[in-house]
């Protein structure tokens, strides 16, 4: 299982995000996202660009196409303007989509072993293209293992847990996890 990456709330990535493993997105990406694992666009998160991954779950807002080699799931409260394609597609009641929606191949069983066309860069390490903003001092201490540009992209290598949790807090005083903390990070953003 590849490690999961997290882009926290209050984080803006301008540029493409691609890599191996899964990505949990709580902030914003203005660019295309391509992962070999799963991508979660959490509630309040937004992507202005296309996403390709094994399984894509959207609770936030996306303007761009979603291509899942396994599944695309648009959950309640999500907003998507773009085309959806995957062997398995779900749009929950209360999830809004405008665009073309197309399932490919068999709906369930045969979805397993098709090539991950959605992730052409599976052998490269995670990478992000950052905005050219000057670094700012992070006022709150970050969990020790976060490889953080202070500009606020955090790619947190985690061993497992592809599911939709914020990164585990490392400091006891940060019991809420990285999500709330990063909000403070970026009050001067934009």
């Amino acid at each position, binding site marked *: 299982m590849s490690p999961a990456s997290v882009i926290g709330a209050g984080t*803006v990535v*301008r540029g493409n995000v691609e890599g191996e493993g899964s990505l949990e997105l709580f902030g*914003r990406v*203005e660019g295309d996202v391509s992962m070999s694992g799963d991508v979660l666009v959490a509630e309040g998160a*937004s992507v*202005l660009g296309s996403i390709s991954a094994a399984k894509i779950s959207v609770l936030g*807002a996306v*303007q761009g196409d979603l291509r899942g080699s396994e*599944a695309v*799931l648009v959950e309640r409260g999500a*907003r998507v*303007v773009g085309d959806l394609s995957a062997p*398995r*597609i*779900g*749009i*929950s*009641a*209360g*999830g*809004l*989509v*405008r*665009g*073309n*929606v*197309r*399932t490919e191949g068999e*709906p*369930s069983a045969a979805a397993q072993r098709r090539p991950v066309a959605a992730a052409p860069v599976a052998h490269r390490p995670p990478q992000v293209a950052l905005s050219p903003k000057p670094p700012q001092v992070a006022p709150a201490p970050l969990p020790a293992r976060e490889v953080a540009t202070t500009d606020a992209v955090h790619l947190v290598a985690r061993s497992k847990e592809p599911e939709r949790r914020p990164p585990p807090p490392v400091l006891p005083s940060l019991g809420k996890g990285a999500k709330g903390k990063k909000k403070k990070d970026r009050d001067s*953003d*934009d």
Partner: protein
Amino acid sequence: MARHSSEVSVLGPSTQVTGRVSGEGGLRVEGSVRGDVQITGDAEIAPGASIEGNVAAASLEISGTLQGDVNARGPVAIRSGAVVRGDLRGSEVSIEPGSRVAVRLTTDFELDLGPAARRR
């Protein structure tokens, strides 16, 4: 007579209609319809049933097969096992995983990507 006096029409599993179905009330299709359906009430395509034609209704629930465009004032729900192809317009369109679709959704809504999306 109680059941018959309800406002819901039913086309049973062995019933095939070739032609146009229109009018008031709801409609449950358990058989097959080849032709357009235009009703004021809720429409339902039962498992194993099919409509080959355009559907206009208050809402539409599809568990069977639909090949045609949909115009619903309310929600359109595609259930697992359904096969749907066409343009779908509704207040919202939900799709259960396990359905097979090739559809265009023209749902009206605002996409709010946040202030920073109006970038630069």
